[in-house]
C-alpha cells in the first residue's frame, strides 16, 4: 500500500504554515454550509471554493487529489444508486422516480461538496499539526498521545504488511480461497505480534531519552491569522447569501 495521497499532500502543502484551528474553521464551515443551505447552488459553490483553494493557493498536486478521490467515489456512487432506486407503488420490484432521482442528486451534491471540504483540511494539514492543536484545545493528553503513536506506527505496520503480503503473493499465497484464508490468518497474527513487539521496543528506546510517563515535545506554534479568519468568515457569508438569495 503506497502512502495515502492526502498525507503526502499535507506534508508538502504551503498552507501548512496556517494555524490548524483556522483551517478547521474553514473546512468545517464549508461542510456545514453545504449541509444546511439550499443544495443548489450551495453545494456547487462549496465544491468550487474547496477545490479552488486546494488547487490554487493550497497548491495541492492534481494527481494526488485524483488519487485521494478514488476511494470515496466508489461509496458515493453506490449510495447514490441505492437512493435513486425505489420500490414501485404496487410493491413489486425496483423502479426510479423523479422524486427518488431528485433525492439521489441532492445527496450526491452534498457528498461531493462535503468530501471536497474535508479534503481541503486533510490535504493542507499534517496529522501531527492537528494533534498538537487538539492537545492545546484540551483533548486529554493520554488520548492525543495514543493518537500520535497510532499515526506513527500505522506507517511502520503498513510497510510491513505490504512486504509480507508481497512475499505471500510470490509464494502463491492468494491463488485459491483456502490459501487466501491461510495467508490472511498468518498476516493478521504476524501484524498483531509485530505491533506488540514495536510498542515494547519503542518503550525501551524512549526510556533512554527520559520517558517517564509524559510524552511532551516542542510542537511548532502556528499562530492564528486574523486575515485568514476574516477571509473565511466573509467567504462563508458570501456563499450563504448567494445560496439563500438565488436558490434554484
Amino acid at each position, binding site marked *: 500500500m503506497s502512502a495515502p495521497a492526502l498525507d503526502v499532500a499535507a506534508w508538502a502543502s504551503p498552507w501548512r504554515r496556517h494555524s490548524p484551528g483556522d483551517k478547521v474553521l474553514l473546512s468545517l464551515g464549508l461542510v456545514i454550509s453545504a*449541509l444546511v443551505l439550499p443544495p443548489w447552488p450551495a453545494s456547487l459553490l462549496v465544491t468550487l471554493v474547496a477545490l479552488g483553494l486546494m488547487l490554487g493557493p493550497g497548491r495541492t498536486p492534481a494527481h494526488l487529489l485524483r488519487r485521494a478521490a478514488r*476511494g470515496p467515489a466508489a461509496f458515493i456512487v453506490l449510495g447514490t444508486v441505492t437512493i435513486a432506486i425505489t420500490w414501485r407503488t404496487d410493491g413489486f420490484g425496483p423502479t426510479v422516480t423523479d422524486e427518488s432521482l431528485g433525492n439521489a442528486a441532492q445527496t450526491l451534491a452534498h457528498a461531493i461538496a*462535503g*468530501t471536497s471540504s474535508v479534503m481541503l483540511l*486533510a490535504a493542507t494539514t499534517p496529522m501531527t499539526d492537528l494533534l498538537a492543536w487538539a492537545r492545546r484545545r484540551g483533548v486529554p493528553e493520554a488520548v492525543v498521545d495514543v493518537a500520535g503513536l497510532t499515526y506513527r506506527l*500505522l506507517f511502520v505496520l503498513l510497510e510491513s504488511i505490504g512486504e509480507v503480503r508481497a512475499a505471500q503473493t510470490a509464494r502463491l499465497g492468494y491463488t485459491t480461497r483456502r490459501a487466501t484464508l491461510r495467508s490472511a490468518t498468518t498476516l493478521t*497474527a504476524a501484524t*498483531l505480534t509485530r505491533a506488540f513487539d514495536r*510498542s515494547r521496543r519503542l518503550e525501551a528506546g524512549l526510556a533512554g531519552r527520559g520517558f517517564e*510517563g509524559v510524552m511532551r515535545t516542542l510542537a511548532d506554534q502556528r499562530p492564528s491569522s486574523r486575515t485568514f479568519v476574516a477571509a473565511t468568515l466573509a467567504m462563508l457569508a458570501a456563499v450563504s447569501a448567494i445560496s439563500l438569495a438565488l436558490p434554484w
Partner: protein
Amino acid sequence: MHIAEGYLPPLHAAAWTVAAAPFVVHGARCVVREVRERPESRLLLGAAGAFTFVLSAIKLPSVTGSSSHPTGTGLGAVLFRPPVMAVLGAIVLLFQALLLAHGGITTLGANVFSMAVVGPWVGYGAYRACLRLGLAFPVGVFAALSLSDLSTYVVTSVQLGLAHPDPTGGVLGSVGEFLGIFALTQIPLAVAEGLLGVLVFRVLARIAPDELSSLGL
C-alpha cells in the same frame, strides 16, 4: 462500510454524534486512567490503534472473487475490550476520514456509533455469552467477529435508511434496500471474518501466549 461526508442531514449527524459521545468519553476516561496507572500502556494502545487501522489492508477471501477486508472491530473488542475500542475506533475513523477521505467529519459520530460502539459491544457481548454458556473459546471468537461485523452493517443500513427514506417504501423500505444491497457481500464476509478470528487466535496461542495472557485472555 463508512458513511461518506454529506450523506446525513444535519439533525441526523448531530443525533448520532450525541449517541456516540458518551461511549467515547467513557472510553477516554478508561484510557486516561490506564495511562495514569501504567504510563507505558500509551505505547501498547498506540500499537493497538495502528493495528486496527491496518487491518483494512488485509485481504479476505470472498465469494464474488473481488477482494474484501475485515472490519476488525470484533477482534479489537475481544483483545482490548469495548470501552477502549470506542476510543481507538474513533481515532481510526478520524484518521480514515482525514488520510483516505473514507468517511467524514459530520458523519464521524454515526460511523463511530456503528463501528466503534455497536460492533464491539455486540461482538464482546456474544463472546462473553458464549463463554458463559460453556461453549468453546473458538465458538466465542467466531461469534464475536462475525456478529460485530454483521451488527455494524445493520446499524449502518438503518442510519442510511433513516436519513434517506424511500419515497414509496418509507424508512423500512429504504433500510431494506440498503440491507439488501450490502447483504450480498456482507454475510459471506462476516463468516470469513469469524473464521479468520478463530484461526488467528489459534496462531496467537502458539506464537504470543504471553501477550494474550497479559490481555487477560
